[in-house]
């Protein structure tokens, strides 16, 4: 006898519920009760009033689905659209796998002195900051010295590709949003969701769609997570461009394209760069978590530290991630500062 039996009886729904024949698998609560050797039909009072949840109602009335039925319903829904989604998404995202695998292969294959050299020249060229360049040099030499070079290179390669793609897609989306209020209204909730969803939850539908061994799985997860700030700040940056200057651009008869390229984007650049900085930091955060789904790099070591209780391995690689984060932050901030100086108004 379940608690809510009398309720259904009094409502005259017993017929609809079906006979009290309780078939099908047992719920967790029933299992527990059984193993304790008690029966589920205990005397109930107002003090032990069970919440009318799906499981409790099901106990009284067969026709009401259990929570387990609901989750499997969600699962079935995913499985049913899986093949068609895969059919569309698989070829579309395949280049991402190639890019990731290719760049990881390339970065690892390069001799260490060449890669570090190129990195330093690039950093100096972008930031024009001696301090940042020295920081990068010291960091890389240290990483190499403690034999974390390969892992760090893998992590950086992934961040490099994912940030690049985030900017490639994020900036145009941000521009479109800034030009179209309705699009902005539609996209912002999606961005909010992407940003607030716990990072592990992202991985679940992706694991369904793609096999865990494919690089695009973690690539997509990182990009989805990290693209949000570029989009937001591009949109914001363009909307914040001084209206007087926009008016001047109009008064001199600029076309929409001229206005975008020679006024709006340059003036929004500090904001866009702030977005890129956040994007880089977020891809670093995600690339560590993505080691759960076979992303190579320092995250793998952290994971090993956790799984095998190798405390030292975990802590040292964690430290390496921290110094990579500092390095990426400094370099992107130095770039931002350089962009800002030439247009302080």
């Amino acid at each position, binding site marked *: 006898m379940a608690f809510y039996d009398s309720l259904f009886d009094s409502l005259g729904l017993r017929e609809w519920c079906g006979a009290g024949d309780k078939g099908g698998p047992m719920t967790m609560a029933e299992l527990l009760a059984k193993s304790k050797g008690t029966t589920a039909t205990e005397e109930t009072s107002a003090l032990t009033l069970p919440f009318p949840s799906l499981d409790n109602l099901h106990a009284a009335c067969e026709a009401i689905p259990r929570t387990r039925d609901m989750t499997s319903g969600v699962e079935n829904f995913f499985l049913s659209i899986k093949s068609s989604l895969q059919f569309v998404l698989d070829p579309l995202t395949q280049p991402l796998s190639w890019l990731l695998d290719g760049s990881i292969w390339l970065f690892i294959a390069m001799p260490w002195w060449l890669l570090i050299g190129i990195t330093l020249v690039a950093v100096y060229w972008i930031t024009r900051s001696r301090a940042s360049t020295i920081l990068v040099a010291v960091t890389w030499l240290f990483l190499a010295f403690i034999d974390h070079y390969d892992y760090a290179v893998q992590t950086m390669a992934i961040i490099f590709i994912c940030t690049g793609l985030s900017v490639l897609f994020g900036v145009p989306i941000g521009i479109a949003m800034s030009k179209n209020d309705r699009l902005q209204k539609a996209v912002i909730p999606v961005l909010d969701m992407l940003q607030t969803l716990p990072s592990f939850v992202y991985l679940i539908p992706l694991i369904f769609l793609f096999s865990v061994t494919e690089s695009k799985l973690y690539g997509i997860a990182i990009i989805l997570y990290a693209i949000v700030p570029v989009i937001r700040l591009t949109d914001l940056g363009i909307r914040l461009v*001084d209206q*007087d*200057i926009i*008016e*001047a651009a*109009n*008064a*001199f*008869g*600029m*076309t929409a394209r*001229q206005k975008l390229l*020679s*006024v709006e984007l*340059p*003036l929004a650049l500090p904001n866009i760069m702030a977005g890129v900085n956040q994007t880089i930091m977020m891809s670093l955060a995600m690339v560590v978590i993505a080691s759960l789904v076979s992303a190579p790099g320092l995250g793998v070591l952290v994971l090993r530290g956790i799984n095998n209780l190798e405390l030292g391995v975990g802590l040292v690689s964690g430290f390496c991630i921290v110094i990579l984060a500092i390095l990426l932050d400094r370099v992107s901030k130095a770039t931002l500062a350089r962009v800002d100086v*030439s*247009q*302080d*108004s």
Partner: protein
Amino acid sequence: MTANVKVSIKNLYKIFGPAPESVLEHAKNGVDKASLLDQHGHVLGLKDINIDMKDGEITVIMGLSGSGKSTLIRHFNRLIEPTDGQILIDGVDVMTLSADDLRKMRQADMSMVFQKFALLPHKTVLENAGTALRVRGFKAEEADVEARKWLDRVGLAGFEDHYPHQLSGGMQQRVGIARALTSNSAVMLMDEAFSALDPLIRTDMQDLLLELQKELHKTIIFISHDLDEALKLADHLVILKDGEVIQQGEPQNILLNPSDPYIEDFVSDINRSRVLRVRSVMQPLKEAASSTAGNVDYNDTLEDVISHSDGDTTKVYLVMHEGEPVGTLCMKDLVRALVPRVPSEESIRS
């Protein structure tokens, strides 16, 4: 002066609000700004504006804050769409232009100088000055040659490679003027171009503008809320109040014959001896002039004459214009002209 009309505004109405067309009828029937806002929830920006601006003249549109000056000047190049009325430039109705033609007109026929300069902060002074030509698709070198010439002309030679934020406000506005001049357009729109500058610099800039105008003869539409500035620059003065033109004409004429208590009140604080000119208060020459105390020029200010006369109010001067005697000036008339017509008792402005 019998110059051609270059820019003409006819029956222009501008109403701000959700459905301007629906209340246009009321505005045309003379519902005023306050009741249009109260009863119909729309802001009457401009009401039945008719102005003819002649080729080669400076037209100053003057009014207090909120009178609709900025709204009006933005109609000339259609940065704001009118609710009703015509805007004719060289006889062409700007309202009939396609988006493309409108852009071409903005590129080539009109240039604009802004109150807050509105320079591109990430471009050098030289690039800024060449904006109009670059937009039109000129090569950078060609644009630079023109831009350099005009920067030189406004006194900014040597600053070509600076960025706007490295310059003072006055210098930035010189760049703004050079940018407008480089476009080589016949019409120049200036929205309170000198209002953000301090008084001395402002005077300099006004002198610069007058000097440039002497050789360039552009059609300049200048917005100002400062009567001294307006009187100094204007060939044609338009006074705007609550979106309506309440008087327009030759500035001296407005000063001597204000048509409205509002304007009387407005002009009562002005240093009239410095603004009024001999031509406005003289008597036309009748036969042979009796004994005169000397010659004064047609375009002298009254102040010049007063210092000339040592304050003697009995004197009569002969007025000369381009070497010919054209009239006589009694010091008595001059002194009378210095006293404004009694302004209305209750101050309009408070």
